[in-house]
């Protein structure tokens, strides 16, 4: 593959990934806003987010073969 083309594809993919990441960030932000509106304690919501991270961390560790 031509290196310029490969570079453009890589660049395009990076932009798509960055946009997807920003979207996820905003989703997390909005979920927190919704929880706040529903009078859920911030510590509870952050605790749930922490538990999600812990499950992802534990599941991903399977790859350390």
């Amino acid at each position: 593959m031509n290196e310029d083309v490969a570079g453009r594809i890589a660049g395009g993919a990076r932009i798509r990934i960055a946009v997807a990441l920003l979207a996820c960030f905003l989703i997390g932000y909005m979920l927190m806003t919704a929880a706040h509106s529903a009078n859920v304690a911030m510590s509870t919501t952050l605790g749930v987010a922490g538990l999600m991270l812990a499950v992802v961390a534990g599941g991903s560790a399977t790859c350390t073969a």
Partner: protein
Amino acid sequence: MILVIGPLVKGDSRQRMWTVQVATYVVTLIATAAASGAVLGFIGAQLFDRLPAAFGALAVLTVVLALVEVGLLRWHLPQRHWQMPRDWLRHRGFGYPVMFGATIGVGVLTRAPFASFHAMLAWQAVMGSIGLGALMGMAYGVARASAPIISAHLSDGLGTALVQSTWWVVQRERVWHLLNGISLALAAGAIVRALLV
């Protein structure tokens, strides 16, 4: 990792002993992970006392780790490049399940190539709660213990199927990194919003 744990799962032909060893491994792993999380929560409570600056630093760290996971930023995550020696399998009975479980449960003693692990440690410390730290440790332990056991069960123990399933997981490492990046971005959004309240 899974190839080392494999003998633990199917190493003993006696079903009863196998069950006891698996249970020992899982309980030790979860207990150690919970204890580590509780210790981090305690240390965090003493050091940070839920300081807004600590939450700000956690938000920045989580964003940076998300960028690292999806490959938009380069940073060599701190980790130990060490794997448990096969020699430990000579400790029969409860010996090696306890040793494997305790070592994996601590987490920082072995490889940790995924940033969600580092974010989890920071999260446990900054939240400054012994209970939440322990709970997160338990969740980590359950997830970490489940995957190899399920895989070994589906593969019917050590053999070609287990090697194939392990490689299937390992070859999709990029996918797991992307999933980690997504999770970290979600968590970062939540903590940034919490800071603004």
